């Protein structure tokens, strides 16, 4: 009898998982019963999310960063476009809003994270997309591009409401690019840039936090730490306003760029036993099997694993996840393990970028990647900037297709990293702090 694998979500994780599984089972028919792969998504627009950072500055256009989801999948994979009603994990069935039921042998949850605008008072009230914006979705990034174009100096505030968020370095990159953008336009001297974060520094981990903190200082970007946004208040005229913290602190702005709270997909909350209080899927951080049931797996932004919500994480998780699904269907023990490997370029403006590489145990350190000779880590360089630009090609043509990318494997390389002495760094062993 045919085994059916249902993958919820046709983004980075769902697409690369589907293509990897398809490639495996096409070549290993003799060992396995036939396998049918179905991918479900509510729309057919696959957004290259790293590109959203560039849209507000006119460096990327919508047409360049969106492609049809179904075209990224091998044609033997069925693509179903519908909203997910709920998953009945006891009956191993996905119920779609359109009425179709999809019984499965293995379920993969890859539905990412959604932006929970409603959880912050006043965020989408008066002034939304006029003086308060986000660049974390395409409509927001596009509206912000128009606003920045008209911006003639004043106070720009970039604010992260609460963790976790997708790509935790993106708000910092936005600050760095804004510094470059206003300099190019000749209005940097009358523009004040402020980064307000709930963290106690520029970043979570000590070595990277110090390096990124110095960069903010160098670029004269104000840093407001441990700021927990309680409300966004816009002036009566609708122009500018202030962020009000729960502790009473206020950060005034002419233009606010807010990264809203994130949650897991809404259907997770409607699926008994599948998610946590924020609709993320509790998942084993090594095997990527969900806690809900042995035949449920999850990857990417949809999970609660203690590492960054980022495409590189999803890519590395995909290798492990696919191996473990194959093992599960073979009734073999799951023993492929994910080490929390993440790898991100951090755009710093003026044609340069940093690179960071880390996992559950090792924080982002300086040195070189992937070995002693390679791209510089935690240090600005043009090579890293070109790497970031080139990555979009790699994403569409290799990563989504589930092909291995030479030199960038699931396990984090340790060669080339400079491990700090204990007195320059604390707390490096926990996956998340």
């Amino acid at each position, binding site marked *: 009898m045919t085994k059916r694998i249902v993958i919820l979500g046709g983004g980075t994780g769902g697409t690369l998982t589907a293509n990897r599984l398809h490639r495996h089972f096409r070549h290993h028919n003799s060992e396995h019963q036939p396998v049918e792969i179905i991918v479900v998504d509510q729309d057919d627009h696959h957004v290259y999310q790293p590109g959203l950072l560039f849209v507000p500055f006119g460096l990327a256009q919508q047409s360049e960063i969106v492609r049809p989801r179904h075209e990224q999948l091998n044609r033997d994979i069925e693509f179903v476009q519908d909203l997910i009603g709920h998953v009945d994990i006891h009956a191993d069935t996905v119920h779609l809003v359109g009425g179709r039921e999809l019984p499965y042998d293995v379920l993969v949850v890859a539905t990412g994270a959604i932006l929970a605008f409603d*959880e912050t008072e006043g965020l989408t009230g008066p002034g939304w997309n006029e003086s308060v914006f986000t660049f974390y979705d395409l409509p927001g990034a596009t509206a912000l591009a128009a606003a920045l174009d008209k911006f003639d100096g004043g106070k720009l505030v970039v604010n992260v409401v*609460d*963790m*976790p968020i997708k790509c*935790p370095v993106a708000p910092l990159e936005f600050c760095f690019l804004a510094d470059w953008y206003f300099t190019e336009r000749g209005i940097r001297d009358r523009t004040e840039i402020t980064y307000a974060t709930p*963290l106690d520094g520029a970043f*979570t*981990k000590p070595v990277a936090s110090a390096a990124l903190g110095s960069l903010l200082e160098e670029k004269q970007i104000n840093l407001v730490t*441990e700021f*927990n946004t*309680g409300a966004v208040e816009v002036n009566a005229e609708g122009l500018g306003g202030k962020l009000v913290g*729960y*502790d009473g602190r206020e950060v005034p702005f002419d233009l606010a760029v807010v990264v809203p*709270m994130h949650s897991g997909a809404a259907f997770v909350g409607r699926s008994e036993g599948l998610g946590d*209080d*924020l609709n993320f899927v509790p998942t084993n951080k090594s095997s990527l099997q969900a806690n809900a049931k042995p035949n449920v797996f999850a990857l990417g932004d949809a999970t609660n694993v*203690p*590492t*960054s*919500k980022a495409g590189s994480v999803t890519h590395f998780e995909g290798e492990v996840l696919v191996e473990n699904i194959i093992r599960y269907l073979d009734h073999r023990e799951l023993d492929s393990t994910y080490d929390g490997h*993440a790898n991100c370029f951090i755009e710093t403006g003026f044609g340069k970028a940093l690179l960071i590489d880390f996992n559950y145990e090792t924080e982002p350190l300086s040195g070189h990647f992937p070995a002693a000779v390679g791209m510089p880590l935690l240090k600005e360089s043009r090579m890293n900037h070109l790497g970031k630009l080139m990555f979009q090609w790699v994403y569409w043509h290799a990563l989504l297709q589930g092909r291995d990318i030479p030199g960038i494997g699931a396990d984090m390389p340790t060669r080339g990293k400079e491990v700090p002495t204990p007195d320059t760094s*604390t707390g490096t062993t*926990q*996956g*998340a*702090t």
Partner: protein
Amino acid sequence: MTTTTYAGAPVELDDEGFFIDPNAWTPAMAEEMAKADGIDTLTEPHWTVLNFMRKEYFEKGTGPTVRVLGKTSGVSVKDLYLLFPKGPAKMAARIAGIHKPKGCI
């Protein structure tokens, strides 16, 4: 790591003042720590939050974030900040004798 004395008993704390062993905690210690943090008396709503944090910690291995506290403890985020002005998740976790809550990178 440092050793200090709360309610007459020696207690080991990490560099940020969180209990190394949550089982070494007693309610009397919480009263003393709260006073040192500027909370004169731990009222019933304070105890609702502290007890909830300890329950979550022992069930899930980590204390809840402010957002989860606001959604699940029955006390709103605004009120949480009134009760624990120095930041509910950290301050309440310390007074509740549990480890520092893990956020995410």
